[in-house]
């Protein structure tokens, strides 16, 4: 009897998931299916056949080049964010609580302002006539403007600043789960601080690092305004070509095909990643924190 009541109560709560599922179905799954459909039905130009938009993609080397660049930039961003975000999150776990709060705010405040505004701010700082080059030129340290903007460096700087919170938060969430007693125990057993960190703390915090990397990587794949404003022409991202197809040419078929390809390639990357990461660990640990 008691067990039945429990089951009923569980079912009642489970109904709360219905609005979310309905929302996702109507506003995400159905449109996604429509995009998939249009990528094979909306075929413009002389080349016909339902795979024409895809044939176009693989027949022109520019798309593959841009797709490759997109994944390259996203990968670089992930590595940089991990390199910056991991120590930062670690610092948050070892300082007193109120400093940790301050450090959290420092990460979050930029997160609350528009990426577009921040990208324009980077322009003002980085360009040839900008604040940094202006200072260096005036002080006589350089005689020609240093190429900061319109470089891959500019893109990575702008993107990593936007993406860093997506790394820091999951890493921090997992690190806080790690019982400090473990490293103390390691020390008791004769491990030095570095060994204790490497053999005990690091392996326990890896799920957070992987979760953060996943978030940063996937979100970075969709960027295009920041690379367009801070990068070189070679830094063009695939989303920028999608935007061109839809907004400039109103070519829904080609734009949809590009979107589907980006989605499929991203899913493949995630599936490969899921072989390496135990997602349940990752999101299980997040769930208890967020």
């Amino acid at each position, binding site marked *: 009897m008691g067990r039945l009541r429990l089951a009923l109560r569980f079912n009642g709560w489970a109904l709360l998931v219905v609005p979310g599922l309905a929302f996702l179905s109507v506003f995400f799954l159905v449109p996604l299916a429509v995009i998939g459909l249009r990528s094979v039905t909306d075929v413009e130009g002389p080349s016909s056949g339902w795979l024409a938009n895809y044939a176009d993609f693989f027949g022109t080397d520019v798309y593959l080049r841009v797709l490759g660049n997109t994944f390259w930039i996203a990968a670089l961003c992930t590595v940089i964010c991990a390199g910056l975000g991991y120590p930062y999150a670690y610092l948050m776990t070892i300082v007193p609580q109120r400093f940790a709060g301050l450090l959290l705010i420092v990460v979050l405040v930029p997160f609350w302002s528009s990426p577009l505004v921040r990208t324009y701010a980077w322009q003002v700082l980085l360009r040839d006539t900008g604040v940094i080059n202006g200072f260096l030129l005036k002080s006589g340290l350089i005689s020609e403007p240093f190429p900061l903007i319109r470089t891959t460096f500019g893109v990575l700087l702008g993107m990593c600043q936007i993406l860093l919170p997506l790394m820091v938060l999951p890493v921090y969430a997992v690190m806080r789960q790690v019982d400090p007693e473990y490293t103390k125990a390691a020390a008791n057993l004769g491990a030095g601080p570095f060994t204790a960190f490497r053999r005990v703390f690091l392996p326990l915090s890896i799920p957070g690092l992987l979760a953060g990397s996943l978030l940063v990587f996937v979100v970075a794949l969709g960027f295009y305004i920041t690379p*367009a404003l801070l990068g070189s022409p070679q830094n063009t991202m695939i989303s920028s*070509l999608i935007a061109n197809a839809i907004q400039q040419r109103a070519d829904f078929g080609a734009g949809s095909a590009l979107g589907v390809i980006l989605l499929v390639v991203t899913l493949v990357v995630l599936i490969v990643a899921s072989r390496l990461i135990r997602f349940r660990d990752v999101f299980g640990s997040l769930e208890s924190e967020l």
Partner: protein
Amino acid sequence: MKPVSRLSIVSIAVGLVITACTGGGSSQSAATASSGASGSTAVADICTNPPRADGKTITFAASGGSYQAAEDKAWLQPYAKLTGIQFQESEVNAYPQIKAQVDAGQVNWDVVDVGNDFGTDIDAKYLEPIDYTKVHKDELLAGFANTYRVAAITYGTVLAYNTTKTNGQVPQSWADFFDTTKFPGKRGVWDYSTGGLFEIALMADGVAPKNLYPLDLARATKKLDTIKKDLVFWQSGAQSVDLLESGEVTMSMMWNNRAYAAKNADHKPVEIQWNGQILTSDYMVVPKGSPNKDLAMNFIAWLTCKENNGNLSNIIPNGPVNKFAKPDASRIPDLPTSHVDASTAYFDDVWLGQNAKLLDDTYAAWKTK
């Protein structure tokens, strides 16, 4: 202004003759029926005394910014006052939305101000044909009144330069734009495959404006390669102004009204070289199935009348499309239509539309190489 007024008399005379000859024709009588007046006065009436439409609302979509604000002041507000009609404005005029509205049979936009890359016959299935019984095509600049669209204004894509960066030297043409030895510094260009980049490269390479089309893309990209490392790509008009004002670029391909604002509103050392300008337009279109088609056509006819078309030029330096429009004399030197000569180029919008995908792919391939 003498020749203009003579032309205007001639055109009115021609118009009267045509009206007289076709007065019994079916298209003319349709116009007569709808406006409730005789053929010749119907055309004159719409300009000075457009039919009232109290309680009616039409939606006007344009690209926002200072341009739409000027349209509002020059055309929407006076027209609303004259006719009692109300305008609902959208600051988004995205072409995919027009297509989506028509495809879905839910047309919310009645009049849309679009760029020169939309509205040719290629887009016929999304647009209502312009009612030329109301719009006087004969008064408009040749080539700017097409089956499904009629130009509202003209603007020039011009070479603008920062006089401090050129040390007072004046670049004479697009050839100088590509000459970074004579004029050191970077060059701003619009990051848009059909925005004129290929055209200015070809002109710089010696192609006469009238021989631009079909574009020789191989030649254009080869020419662009010569200054590729000095190019700065801009995404918005505001960004082009910023690049030129700050001296980040020495010269920029730019819309003439933006260059004008840099000089006259921001008081920066910016000048325009009109030589080799590409004269083009923003067009008015009516999405197919607009529930207010007739009201939309009335408004479009009214704003292209010689009495009204110049209103906008008094606010921002876009040229009129009606040859007989009379903007204030003080505005004349800054209007692109005052600088039309043999060096002036025009986009071939039909060719550009037919080759949009090729142009986009060629552009992306060149840019990312």
